[in-house]
Structure formats: structure tokens, C-alpha cells
């Protein structure tokens, strides 16, 4: 049992020995380091002598004299880098400290942080009182030394040696000090105090330091110290102390942190009575940069000071801030002092107003905006006796005024005294609309938004935030903290563009604009977009356009774009392809990719484009497709044949008349759309018919051999020939009719002449006028134009300028060198029209009915038609001998759809149908049986062809006159006998010119309804070849002479011919013994030419003696353009 106890004791002794050895081993392997606290501390210093040679230093002994030499080399104040330095490696405990001189190149030892017990150190030779801290700018470590037992001596020198490591102290070994030791000289100029500074700090690194002091030749060393600079920071005191108002009128003292603090701070606020008052003081701790205080403190003069230190770690308290006097600093307080808000919102401001030292009660406070506008009292609220509140409603965006981007709100005394301080109100318009568009490939959504730069504050920024819902949009989109910022790019006009790619087609993207500013953050109203709802489709492709044949509709076809469903609506725009395109729009929905459009013009090239969008109206219209163009091609056979007229020339040698047909090229709206050739159909009285073709040109000549010769011109294109055509029947017998009472021509300018005419008072149904003119100076061909019957003036355009004597225009208003002949008009009597025939005015000597008729006067002819309107029931066949001299008719089965194209025809036809009575012409012409009989008698008694020297007019027939012609051949009436034979005395002169037989005005007459009842429309163009010669008055025509109403030959010539160009106005009188009207009296024409001028007139005027009773003009027309009154 004893032996057991002994064994146990041995083992305990052995264990204790091992433990002691282990301790020794550990002690040998470490150097203890004193950690510098954020306060002053006491550190022992050791006299360095040979006794400090370390027993563990492996035979390496450092003499302090060597160190001394090194120290002598470092005299600058800048830290010096030393290659190798010795330091004291100490171990201490509560009652002992053991140091040895060590060198970094020796065996490495670990540093152990430890505090030195001051009580223990007091037993040692001497102590240093040290305090180290980091200055407020965080770039300088300062260590202040005080000597407890030593007095400063002049030969004393102190250095602070240090090494820097990024490792914590426990990880640093002695070997790491090798080659990295710096020396910072200390300033010991103050009494018993030295100050050492280490610049260029790294706050989170570990600094290992020790002090070396040499007094005379005595070296004193300190143990090693270490510190992390961030742990000993002494901040600058808080700044900018001020009073502010909190919500609900509470007052708080506020301050600002010192700059560059690397960690949060805690504060102490000291409120003390001002000097001279009681020594009351209160200290409060604050964790924020403000502390609420009692409003009552504002009434007295209290001082406030604040200091700060590290909130979570070690550190020094800063010094106290500069005192702030509550009484002086609180004259006006606003809450909030600045506010940032959005347009349309309501904001409130609070105010405490202290006029110098006296508080203004809240009910005496008034509010002003920008020192210009007093805010109504109704917007005030008295929070308490001291605090007033004002509320501003429905704010509008702040307009920058100069460099001020805010509204200034002033809290004033009601005596209109204001403090200079104000609250700032920033109102920003954040109603920013975001519009998105998904491309036609459904892969990219581009969102755009724009902000008015004038309303943005300096230093503000805008960004688009969004989040995505899985599918569709929420019912009420709202902002969310889970949103992301979408990068947007600034475009022109201050707009931004953000692109989402790839996209989730059916997801809801909720987006808004965030406005960021130092004063706060504003957000626009969130909007949610589903990309599939904002698609801008690709435009339709493969667009084609054509005018359909026969139907004449614009047929547009296309291919729907990819990535669209079939529910699309389309817009088609089309226009005549010309320089200035005027689009017309046509909309269709859900169509099978084509549309038919009714267009007005069929024979033009159309340009067509198509675009589309979703049928339900979502999304956008696509871009317009590429243009498609129609080809101009024949749509139908020409609607009608060309209008034409004729020139008749006579070959005296061969005693043959040649007829030249002239026709207007068929316009496209009638040809639909081209004319490949014209077909001239001839039919003579011998019932012989033949055709000839004209591929090019608009004239055709043929000899006129037969007594009557009917010509029809048809237009032909690739579809067929025209179905409605004009006929012209030429007859050897000619007559004229007068519908034009007066004709005037006035030059408008050098290129235009206006013709004005008046009609006879008789009631005629005039179907159209034909105007012929010719430029006598330029040897031009005769020109003609057909004008509608409802106008009374006409502009002829062309070069009419009289180059030699333009001033004569002033003297003579009408200076025209082109002769114009206006022959005119066929009248149709009141009732139904059947046929009218004119032949030569009978010679009263031979024709009993003509006796008493004054053929000089138009009334004469009028009377012939209307004098006995009641006697209308003549037999058409009886008239056949007097059938048409010239007859143009248009015949066509009238279809309903053609009526628009033939308005004139239709109207004429209608009139004739409406007429229940025979025309005036018919009635007057045939109402006298004696007239008829006498003519018949005359015929039977033999023809007297030489007597009449004047032709007269006219008439009408219709296209169905062949039968009449035959009868005419058989039944020669008195007109035949009265006909002006070619070999008559006067006719020689007449026939020498085409004017005598060919010129005239005429009318188109519809066919009498009874003639062709089967939807046939007949138009007759009547030629008035002349009027009757002067004849003895017949008893049947008892009207007196009326020079104003007599027919005349009107001629106007340029005054460049001076007196020789005497105008023939009385020529008709000479020739026809007509009295001219005084139509031209007003314009200075001669009304009666002297007899000796007749010859001149006849010789100088090419068409002088022709049809003297025809209205004529002579004009110097070089170029004639025509227009109708309607067009003008």
C-alpha cells in the first residue's frame, strides 16, 4: 500500500517537472508584447548592459555600443529603414520582468500579446508614461512620452522603432522584423515630455514598436509594444451643430460626423448653462447625429457640445465640439427644411418662428411662397402655440428660376416681417410614361421613356426598374423591392431606350422610373406590359397590285407576315404614282390576303402599300410594306369613239370636195386605257359601206363624191372597239342656224383670249358649241374645240402677243390676230324633238313661204321654229327632202352604268324625251302648209340654183336619215330650188375657202325619241354653214328689221395692220345684206365698212366673204390651249 502511494507521488513529481520544463520551453520560444490601449499607460524601460545578454541567444552577443553607433546615424526626423535591429525580448509576470537583447536574424520566436501590470513595473528601475493615438485625419500615429523619474536632459535622445505587418500580432514572428524596421525620431523639446509621430498609417495593420532612449551614454530600452491604429483613433469633434425641427414640432439638436471615420460613432451631448448662470449640466448619449431636446430649452441661453468615439470598438473620445447656443441658433426652424416630392402630391411644412429672442405664437405666423405669394390662411394649421403648419395641395412641377431649382417657403410674422431662412420645396414631374414595343420576330421588346431635362434637379438620376410576373400582369401593378435595374441608353430628345432580349412573351413586365436625389427617391406610377400585347408586326410581304380587266377594280394581294396569327386588320394605301403622292386609305379586316378597291382612274399607275396590326387593336401598326405598282393596260374596250370635225376643201378643177376628218385623241378615261388604231367607217347614200384604219395620227382625208356621206370613227384597243361613236353625215346641201347673238373676244394677257358670247333669246336646246380658230400669222391649221352648251365664255390659251406694237392693246382692247369662228347652236323646241331640217333659205321670189321673211335677223329663224308651236304634228317623212346637211350622231344602246360617262348625252336625251311638243324649229319650219307646198311646187317647176347667194342654215337630223335622204332625192322641195348653187355669183367666193362650207358652229342634237325607241341614243351635230341670204320679207315673217339681232360676220384683226386692217363687220351686209349687230361697236370696230373697202376686205381676209352671217374672229393665235368655263 505504501509503495503504491510512493509510486503515485513519483509520477506526480515527474509530471510536474515535465510541466515546468514545458513552461520553460514555451517561455524561451516567445517574446511578450505589450498591447497599447486607447489610454495612457505605464511601461518600464531597462538599462541595456551585458547582463541582458540572453542565455537563449545561441552565443550571439550584441554589445549596446554597436547599437549606439547605429543610433548616431539616424538623426533625421523621417523614419529610417534599418537593415537589422536588435530589440528586447521580454517575458513578464505579475512580479518579474526578464528581457534579453535579441535580433531578428536569430531563431524565430513568436509574439505573445500581454498587458504589463503597472504595479509590477513599479518595482523596476523606471517607467514611461505613454499615450498613443491616431489623429483625426487618420494619417498620423502620435505617441506622447512622459518620464516618471527622469528629468529631461539636453543629451537625451529618444527614437521610436517600429515594424508594420498586415498579420495580427499572434501570427507575427520575430523573424518578420528583419529588414522592415523603421525609426521615427521623437521630439523632446517640451519639458518632461517627448512626442513621436508615425506617418502614413495603415489603420488595420499591426504595428510593433519599441522605444530607445540614450541619456549621455546610457541606453534605455522599452519592451516591445504593438497596436492596431484603428483601435486608438481619436476622432475630430462633431461638426455643424444646429437645431432642427422634427415631426410634430419637436426640436432636436443635430450635428455632423467628422470626416473619414472608418466606423460608426457614438456621441455624448452636453447641455450646460451659459456662463454667468448656474452650473447646470446634462450629458446624454446618442447613437445618431441628433438628439431631441425640450422646446423649453430654446427660451434660455443654453450651450450644447457634442463629442464622439468608436461605437463598437476601442478608441478615444474626441474633444468636445464648439459650443452651440440654443437661444441664438433657433430663430426660425422648418420641418422639413427641404422636401422632394412629385407633381400632384400634397406636402406640409412646420415652422417655429422666434423673432430674436421672443417666440412668435403660431397664430401670428403667415406663410409666403417665393417671397411673392402669400399662402391663404385656410391652408394653415396651428399645431401648438409655437408651431404652425401649412399644407400645399396638388403641387405643380418646380420651374427653374435662374439657378434655383426649388420653391422657397417662408414663415413670416403677420406684420409682414420674415426671417431670411426658408424651407425648400422641390417638385419633380415623375409622371413618366413608358411605352414598349415588341418587334415582329417576337424576340425583343424595346421600351422608351423620356424625361424633361428642365424639370430634373442637379445631381439627380433616373433609372428604369422592373420585375417580371410569370405570366400576365397583376391586376394592380405596384413597385417591388425585388425589382431589377434595367440599363437604358440615352437617345435623341432626352429619351431613353431599354431593350429586353430575349423576352418572355406572355410574362408581365412591371416597370417604373426611379428618380434618385440626395433629398430622396421618387417613383413614377408602375406600368405593366405583356410583350405579346405590344407587338409591331412585320409588314406584309409579296404585295402585288393590278387593275382588274373588264371590272376595273384595284386588286391588291399580299402575304401575311411571319409570327402573326390570322386575326389581322390591314390598311391599304394607294395613290396615283406621281411626284406628289396623295395617299388614299382603305381598311380591311380578316380578309384572305387580298382586297378589291374601287378607284376613279383606271389608266394610271398606282403605287400601293399595305400594313397590318392585330385585329383586336392591341399592338401597333406594322411599317408599310414595300411599294407595289400597277401596270397600265387596257381594261375595257374604249367607251366611245373620238369627237371629230371636218375640213372641207374643194378642188375646183376636179369639181370635187375633199373632206379631212380631224379628231381629238381619245383620252384615257374614254379609251381604257389605250387606242391602238382608229377605224373610220364610211357609208354613202348609195348604201355603200367601207372601213379604213388609222394607226397613227388623228386625221383622215377622203373625197366627198356622193351626195351624202356618213362617217363614223371608232376607237380600238386590245379589248375591242368603242361601242358609242359619233357619226358625221356630209351632205351637199348646207344650211346654217343662228343661236349666237353676239360674240366678243378680249385678250386677257399675251397668252390668253377670252371669248364671250350671248345666245339668241329664243329657247333653244343647245347640245354643244364648236369653236374654230386659226392663227393667221403662223400659217397654222385650223383648230377647233367642242364646248358644252351651258357656258357662255371660253378661254383660249396660246401666244397672242403682238410683238410689233403691244401698246395697241391699250387703244384697242381686243387685238387678236387669230380668227375665231363661233358657229352655233342648234335649238330644239320645247316639246319632243323629232327632226329638223334646214336647207337653203328659199328665195322669196320662188318660195312663197319665204316671202316676208327677213333672213337677216335671227328672229327670222326663230320664228320659223317657234312662231306656231301649236302646229307640231308634222309628218317626219314630209321633211325628208330637207334632211340634214351635216349630221353627227352618237348611237349606242344606253346602259345604266354608262350614264355617268355620257352625262351630256343623257341629259340631252332626257330633255328630248320630256319634250312633248315638236321643237320650235320643226313647228316653225313646217307649220305653214303654204310654205311646204310652195316649195314642193317650186321643185316641180324646176330648180333655180343660181339665185341664192347666201347659204343658210341648218339643221338637224339624226342618224336614221337614210330613208329621208332617199325621199329627199325624190322630193325636191323649194329649198332645193333655193339652194345656193356652187356656180352662183357669190358662191364662187364662198367656195374658194373651206370656211364657206365648213366653218360654223353647230349643235349636237339627240335623236328624237320616237326614232329609236330601243334604248338607242342619237346625237346629232348640226353644222350651220350659213344663214340665209337677204330676201324679201315674207308675210309670214313680219317682224321688223332689227340690226341688233341680225346675223353678222364678225372679224377682228390685229391693229398692227393699222388702217388697212379694217375690220369687216359690214361685210355680211355687203354679201348678205345683213345688218350687223353693234357687238363690236364698243370695242371700236367698224360697223360699216365703206364700199370701197369691200374689195380689200375680201382680198385681205382670207375667209372674208364666206359666210358673212357667221360670227367670226380673227386672232393672232400662235398656240391655243383650251379650257372650258367649268374648268376655269
Amino acid at each position: 500500500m505504501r509503495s503504491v502511494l510512493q509510486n503515485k507521488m513519483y509520477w506526480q513529481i515527474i509530471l510536474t517537472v515535465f510541466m515546468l520544463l514545458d513552461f520553460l520551453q514555451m517561455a524561451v520560444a516567445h517574446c511578450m508584447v505589450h498591447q497599447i490601449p486607447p489610454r495612457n499607460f505605464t511601461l518600464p524601460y531597462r538599462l541595456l548592459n551585458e547582463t541582458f545578454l540572453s542565455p537563449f541567444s545561441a552565443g550571439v552577443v550584441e554589445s549596446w555600443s554597436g547599437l549606439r553607433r547605429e543610433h548616431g546615424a539616424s538623426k533625421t526626423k523621417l523614419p529610417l529603414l534599418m537593415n537589422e535591429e536588435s530589440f528586447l525580448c521580454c517575458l513578464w509576470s505579475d512580479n518579474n520582468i526578464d528581457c534579453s537583447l535579441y535580433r531578428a536574424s536569430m531563431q524565430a520566436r513568436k509574439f505573445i500579446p500581454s498587458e504589463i501590470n503597472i504595479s509590477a513595473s513599479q518595482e523596476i528601475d523606471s517607467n514611461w508614461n505613454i499615450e498613443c493615438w491616431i489623429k483625426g485625419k487618420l494619417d498620423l500615429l502620435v505617441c506622447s512620452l512622459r518620464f516618471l523619474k527622469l528629468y529631461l536632459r539636453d543629451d537625451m535622445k529618444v527614437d521610436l522603432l517600429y515594424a508594420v505587418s498586415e498579420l495580427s500580432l499572434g501570427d507575427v514572428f520575430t523573424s518578420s522584423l528583419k529588414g522592415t524596421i523603421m525609426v521615427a525620431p521623437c521630439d523632446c523639446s517640451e519639458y518632461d515630455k517627448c512626442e513621436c509621430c508615425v506617418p502614413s498609417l495603415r489603420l488595420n495593420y499591426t504595428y510593433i514598436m519599441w522605444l530607445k532612449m540614450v541619456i549621455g551614454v546610457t541606453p534605455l530600452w522599452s519592451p516591445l509594444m504593438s497596436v492596431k491604429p484603428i483601435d486608438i483613433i481619436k476622432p475630430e469633434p462633431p461638426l455643424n451643430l444646429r437645431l432642427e425641427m422634427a415631426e410634430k414640432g419637436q426640436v432636436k439638436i443635430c450635428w455632423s460626423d467628422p470626416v473619414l471615420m472608418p466606423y460608426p460613432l457614438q456621441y455624448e451631448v452636453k447641455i450646460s448653462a451659459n456662463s454667468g448662470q448656474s452650473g447646470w449640466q446634462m450629458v446624454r448619449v446618442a447613437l445618431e447625429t441628433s438628439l431631441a431636446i425640450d422646446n423649453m430649452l430654446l427660451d434660455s441661453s443654453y450651450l450644447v457640445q457634442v463629442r464622439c468615439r468608436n461605437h463598437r470598438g476601442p478608441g478615444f473620445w474626441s474633444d468636445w465640439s464648439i459650443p452651440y447656443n440654443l437661444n441664438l441658433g433657433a430663430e426660425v426652424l422648418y420641418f422639413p427644411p427641404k422636401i422632394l416630392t412629385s407633381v400632384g402630391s400634397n406636402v406640409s411644412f412646420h415652422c417655429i418662428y422666434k423673432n430674436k429672442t421672443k417666440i412668435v405664437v403660431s397664430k401670428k405666423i403667415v406663410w409666403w411662397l417665393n417671397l411673392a405669394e402669400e399662402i391663404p390662411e385656410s391652408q394653415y394649421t396651428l399645431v401648438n402655440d409655437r408651431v404652425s403648419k401649412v399644407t400645399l395641395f396638388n403641387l405643380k412641377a418646380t420651374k427653374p428660376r435662374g439657378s434655383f431649382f426649388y420653391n422657397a417657403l417662408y414663415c413670416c410674422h403677420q406684420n409682414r416681417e420674415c426671417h431670411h431662412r426658408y424651407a425648400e420645396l422641390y417638385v419633380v414631374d415623375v409622371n413618366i410614361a413608358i411605352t414598349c414595343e415588341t418587334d415582329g420576330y417576337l424576340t425583343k421588346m424595346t421600351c422608351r421613356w423620356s424625361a424633361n431635362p428642365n424639370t430634373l434637379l442637379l445631381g439627380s438620376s433616373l433609372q428604369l426598374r422592373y420585375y417580371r410576373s410569370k405570366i400576365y400582369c397583376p391586376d394592380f401593378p405596384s413597385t417591388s423591392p425585388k425589382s431589377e435595374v434595367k440599363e437604358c441608353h440615352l437617345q435623341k430628345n432626352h429619351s431613353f431606350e431599354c431593350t429586353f432580349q430575349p423576352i418572355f412573351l406572355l410574362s408581365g413586365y412591371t416597370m417604373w422610373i426611379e428618380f434618385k436625389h440626395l433629398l430622396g427617391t421618387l417613383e413614377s406610377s408602375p406600368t405593366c406590359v405583356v410583350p405579346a400585347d405590344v407587338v409591331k408586326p412585320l409588314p406584309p410581304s409579296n404585295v402585288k397590285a393590278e387593275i382588274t380587266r373588264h371590272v376595273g377594280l384595284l386588286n391588291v394581294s399580299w402575304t401575311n407576315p411571319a409570327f402573326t396569327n390570322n386575326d389581322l386588320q390591314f390598311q391599304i394605301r394607294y395613290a396615283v404614282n406621281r411626284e406628289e403622292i396623295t395617299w388614299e386609305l382603305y381598311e380591311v379586316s380578316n380578309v384572305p390576303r387580298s382586297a378589291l378597291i374601287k378607284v376613279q382612274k383606271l389608266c394610271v399607275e398606282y403605287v400601293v402599300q399595305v400594313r397590318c396590326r392585330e385585329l383586336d387593336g392591341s399592338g401597333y401598326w406594322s411599317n408599310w410594306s414595300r411599294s407595289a405598282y400597277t401596270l397600265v393596260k387596257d381594261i375595257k374596250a374604249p367607251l366611245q369613239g373620238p369627237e371629230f370635225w371636218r375640213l372641207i376643201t374643194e378642188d375646183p378643177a376636179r369639181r370635187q370636195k375633199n373632206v379631212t376628218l380631224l379628231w381629238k385623241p381619245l383620252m384615257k378615261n374614254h379609251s381604257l386605257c389605250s387606242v391602238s388604231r382608229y377605224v373610220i367607217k364610211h357609208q354613202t347614200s348609195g348604201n355603200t359601206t367601207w372601213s379604213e384604219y388609222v394607226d397613227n395620227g388623228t386625221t383622215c382625208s377622203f373625197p366627198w363624191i356622193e351626195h351624202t356621206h356618213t362617217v363614223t370613227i371608232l376607237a380600238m384597243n386590245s379589248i375591242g372597239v368603242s361601242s358609242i361613236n359619233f357619226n358625221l353625215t356630209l351632205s351637199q346641201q348646207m344650211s346654217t342656224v343662228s343661236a349666237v347673238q353676239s360674240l366678243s373676244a378680249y385678250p386677257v394677257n399675251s397668252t390668253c383670249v377670252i371669248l364671250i358670247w350671248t345666245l339668241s333669246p329664243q329657247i333653244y336646246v343647245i347640245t354643244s358649241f364648236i369653236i374654230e380658230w386659226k392663227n393667221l400669222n403662223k400659217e397654222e391649221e385650223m383648230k377647233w374645240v367642242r364646248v358644252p352648251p351651258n357656258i357662255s365664255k371660253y378661254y383660249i390659251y396660246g401666244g397672242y402677243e403682238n410683238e410689233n406694237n403691244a401698246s395697241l392693246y391699250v387703244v384697242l382692247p381686243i387685238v387678236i390676230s387669230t380668227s375665231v369662228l363661233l358657229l352655233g347652236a342648234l335649238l330644239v323646241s320645247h316639246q319632243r324633238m323629232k327632226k329638223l331640217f334646214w336647207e337653203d333659205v328659199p328665195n322669196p321670189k320662188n318660195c312663197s313661204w319665204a316671202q316676208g321673211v327677213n333672213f337677216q335677223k335671227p328672229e327670222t329663224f326663230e320664228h320659223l321654229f317657234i312662231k306656231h308651236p301649236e302646229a307640231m304634228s308634222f309628218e317626219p317623212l314630209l321633211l325628208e327632202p330637207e334632211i340634214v346637211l351635216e349630221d353627227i350622231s352618237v348611237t349606242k344602246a344606253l346602259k345604266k352604268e354608262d350614264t355617268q360617262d355620257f352625262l351630256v348625252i343623257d341629259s340631252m336625251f332626257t330633255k328630248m324625251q320630256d319634250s312633248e311638243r315638236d321643237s320650235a324649229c320643226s313647228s316653225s319650219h313646217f307649220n305653214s302648209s303654204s310654205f311646204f307646198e310652195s316649195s314642193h311646187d317650186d321643185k316641180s317647176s324646176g330648180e333655180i340654183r343660181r339665185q341664192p347667194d347666201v347659204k343658210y342654215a341648218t339643221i338637224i337630223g339624226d342618224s336614221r336619215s337614210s330613208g329621208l335622204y332617199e325621199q329627199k332625192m325624190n322630193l325636191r322641195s323649194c329649198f332645193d330650188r333655193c339652194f345656193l348653187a356652187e356656180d352662183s355669183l357669190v358662191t364662187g367666193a364662198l367656195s374658194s375657202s373651206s370656211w364657206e362650207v365648213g366653218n360654223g358652229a353647230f349643235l349636237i342634237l339627240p335623236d328624237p325619241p320616237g326614232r329609236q325607241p330601243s334604248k338607242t341614243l342619237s346625237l346629232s351635230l348640226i353644222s350651220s354653214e350659213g344663214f340665209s341670204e337677204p330676201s324679201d320679207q315674207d308675210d309670214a315673217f313680219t317682224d321688223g328689221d332689227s340690226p341688233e339681232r341680225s346675223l353678222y360676220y364678225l372679224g377682228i384683226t390685229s391693229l398692227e395692220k393699222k388702217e388697212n386692217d379694217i375690220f369687216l363687220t359690214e361685210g355680211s351686209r355687203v354679201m348678205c345684206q345683213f345688218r350687223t349687230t353693234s357687238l363690236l361697236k364698243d370695242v371700236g370696230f367698224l360697223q360699216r365698212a365703206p364700199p370701197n373697202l369691200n374689195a380689200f376686205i375680201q382680198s385681205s381676209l382670207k375667209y372674208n366673204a364666206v359666210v358673212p352671217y357667221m360670227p367670226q374672229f380673227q386672232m393672232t393665235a400662235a398656240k391655243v390651249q383650251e379650257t372650258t368655263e367649268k374648268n376655269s
Partner: protein
Amino acid sequence: MRWPGMSLWGVLWLWLPLASGHPVRLEKVRADTRNLTRTLSARIQQLQLFPLSLKITGLEAIPGEGAPEGLGAMDHRLQLFQRLLGGLAAGGLPLAQIANDMENLRSLLAALAAHLGCPLPRAPPAPPGLPDLLAEAPHTAAGLALARLRICLDGIAARLDSLPAC
């Protein structure tokens, strides 16, 4: 005794707008689903990786082309394709867009199933050997997968013309 009857009618009248609103929403989901399948099909067609005129072997991991019948089967099939395309989508934008469309399409099918009161489909097991296949022959896998997906989508679109079963 009249009041209970009146209140019952009142409750029925209150339910009327809800009942009438339901088909409209369902119809929109169905139409959107159908349109999205067509859009996806058109997208795949535009990619034109290669025409599948040959029979390709060794790609059993790729889902079949037969159109699934019910909503659950559709989602099942689409999920397989989605995984497959997920391995391919790192490549380019078109495949990324198709992947997005697939996700939208599955969400729509889920919404449709919710409207019809169908149970939530379970996630299918991953086909064996898929990563190896994608690493070994990505081009073949992409072409075949897209071609089969397109056929599958066309089938789904056709089934969506009428209300599909769960």
C-alpha cells in the same frame, strides 16, 4: 320564410358575374397558349438547323415526337424538352428565346390546368445519358430535339383547338 329564398337568389345573382368571367379568362389563356405554340413552332422552323430526312439512332434520351394527350402529359413532355434545350441554350440567342417561350408555355399550361382543376403534374425523371449525349453530339441533339419539339408543339396546338383534358 320568404327571406331565405330571396337571399338564395341573391347569392346566385352574385355568382353570375363570377361564373361568366371565368370562361373569358380561360378562353384567353387557351388562345394565348395556342398562339405561343404556333410562334414557337415558327421560330424553330426559322432556325432550320437541318432537315430530318434521315433516321438517327443513338438518341433515345430525346423525347419522342408524338403529341401528348392531356395537359399533364404536355407539361411532362415540354419539361423534358426544356431540360434538353437548357443544355443547349448556352449557345445563342435564338435558343435562349425558345427556352423563354417554353417557360411561358409551361406557365400557360399550368394556368390552364388550374382553370380546369387538374392536379399538379409531377416532374419527370431526367432521361439517362442526356449530359453525355449533349456533350458528345450537340449538333445532332439540337437538330433532332428541335425537330421533335416542333412536331410536338404542332400537336399541342391542334389539341388546344378544343379544351384539352387533364
